[in-house]
């Protein structure tokens, strides 16, 4: 167990030292709850050298383990939706996982790699950070009776994950669940088409007011 922390201010690219390292003078603040990432680290140790599967193939398992580690820790939505918390987790606690997940060479950091530990602020901001992208969908989907299957299907196709995460509609958790349900058995192209269809209708129709079935009907029309 370790006392949970967050960065005092949200870090940007210029706040990191070479190799995506958090500067020694980065200020953190203590929360009044503790976290334990041992199960996450143990699972990481067990899979990191395996060559038969890609890191992306373990997203579902990591997502569930992370969710179970944090959900009863005492953390609330105030922490779960605060990127400063996830930056601390990514840079200080689970950095090795972040590097492994995206095959980052810390001696040759590309501009795209910064977001993997810093996240972003736009619609898909939480899906950019390597750790919050695992937690947020689990937090929303695992409350459903078929949560495991939904979470698995969400991470099954990376393009599906990104299309849903980058849709402003999916900021509404109920709509997020409905879209994942509606696209559960679709392939990549069908998923992109379904989400595009919802995005195209949102200025004239209030998707947020629809039931899960109504959202599915609208998304799957002509698919």
């Amino acid at each position: 167990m370790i006392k949970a922390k967050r960065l005092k201010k949200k870090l940007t690219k210029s706040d990191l030292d070479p190799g995506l390292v958090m500067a020694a003078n980065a200020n953190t603040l203590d929360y009044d709850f503790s976290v334990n990432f041992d199960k996450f680290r143990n699972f990481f140790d067990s899979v990191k050298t395996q060559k038969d599967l890609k890191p992306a193939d373990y997203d579902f398992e990591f997502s569930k383990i992370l969710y179970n580690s944090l959900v009863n820790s005492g953390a609330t939505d105030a922490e779960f939706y605060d990127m400063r918390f996830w930056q601390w987790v990514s840079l200080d606690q689970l950095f090795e996982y972040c590097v492994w997940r995206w095959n980052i060479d810390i001696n040759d950091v590309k501009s795209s790699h910064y977001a993997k530990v810093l996240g972003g602020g736009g619609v898909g901001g939480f899906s950019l950070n390597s750790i919050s992208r695992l937690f947020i969908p689990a937090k929303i989907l695992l409350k459903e009776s078929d949560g495991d299957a939904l979470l698995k299907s969400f991470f099954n196709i990376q393009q599906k994950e990104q299309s849903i995460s980058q849709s402003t509609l999916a900021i509404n958790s109920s709509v997020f669940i409905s879209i994942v349900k509606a696209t559960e058995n679709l392939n990549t192209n069908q998923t992109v088409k379904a989400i595009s269809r919802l995005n195209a209708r949102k200025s004239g129709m209030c998707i947020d007011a629809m039931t899960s079935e109504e959202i599915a009907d609208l998304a799957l029309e002509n698919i």
Partner: protein
Amino acid sequence: MAINFGFKEEADTGMELSFLGSIKGTENIGKDGTILSFKERPETPFDINFTLKIAKDILSSTLPDGDIESNSFKNSIQMNLFYESVASRRRGLIKLIKDNKSSDSDFFIYTLKMSIDPALWFGDINFKAIALRTKECLAKEGFNTEKHSILGSSTEKRLYIDPFCPPSGGQLDVKIGEIDDYSGVLYKLDKENLVVLLNNKSPKLVQQILSCENKTGKKATLRDALFEPIVIDITEQLAREAFKLMLANEEDNHIISPSDLDEPYKSVASDIAKQLCSDSDSEDEMNQSLVDKLYDPDDRQEVINEALPMIVQSLSKVESLYNSITKVILETQERSND
């Protein structure tokens, strides 16, 4: 002015959402009370009171039977407050309550109190009122009769929970310097230092005009007109660089939002998004539409090769500046002919 029945845009003009009363600790940073910002991040929960004023005649024009006092209206049209905060990942609807005492023969008044726990909110929250059809009615051409169709929406209000910081670093300095890599060029965008370099080997007269600091007069008019095509080109170069940065994570199927870029790319990409996606309701939606367009390879080509050159031109003042310099030249010519 005639009203096009059933078209949302017309009904929008008849819906006015306001913050009712002041919110302690905030200041007005927008026009007409549209945008409020806390001066310091609030630490304790607070309430926001809203009032919605609807012009009955305009809203009634969106109904097939035009009867805004009917039971059918009461049972099938609902006024809602729509809120969205991208940074907090929160978005939803709250039903507005009709205030019969304040409503009169011309206007319906609706109110709502929304409680905010600042611990759960980050960045800003956008609000707008929407008139929503909750039950389908008999289809009639020109009317929104489907369930969940939006009959009208108010202009957006915004509240910054985290104090608003005006964008900085969105301007580029212009310097006279050496351009070695190509011959015969007049200027270059130095992306590393974010300055526009004017070639010190270009004709001295051109350098003098382009670097003149007069605020008014013929020289200033000539400088502004000559400079504007350079501004257009530099803006296009910055936009292309901004798109490149947005696509840095493309291999993971993630396109970065303009709001996550550093200046000046953030401002340039946001300006492009506003022009390209002007039918979207909010800045976030506009940015998201640009992200969606860059995500699709065909749309991306269209944006970069067709829309972008026109957008950077329409963002510029080239037309009015050319008009000014043309007048100056013609007047000078006429005087010399006299």
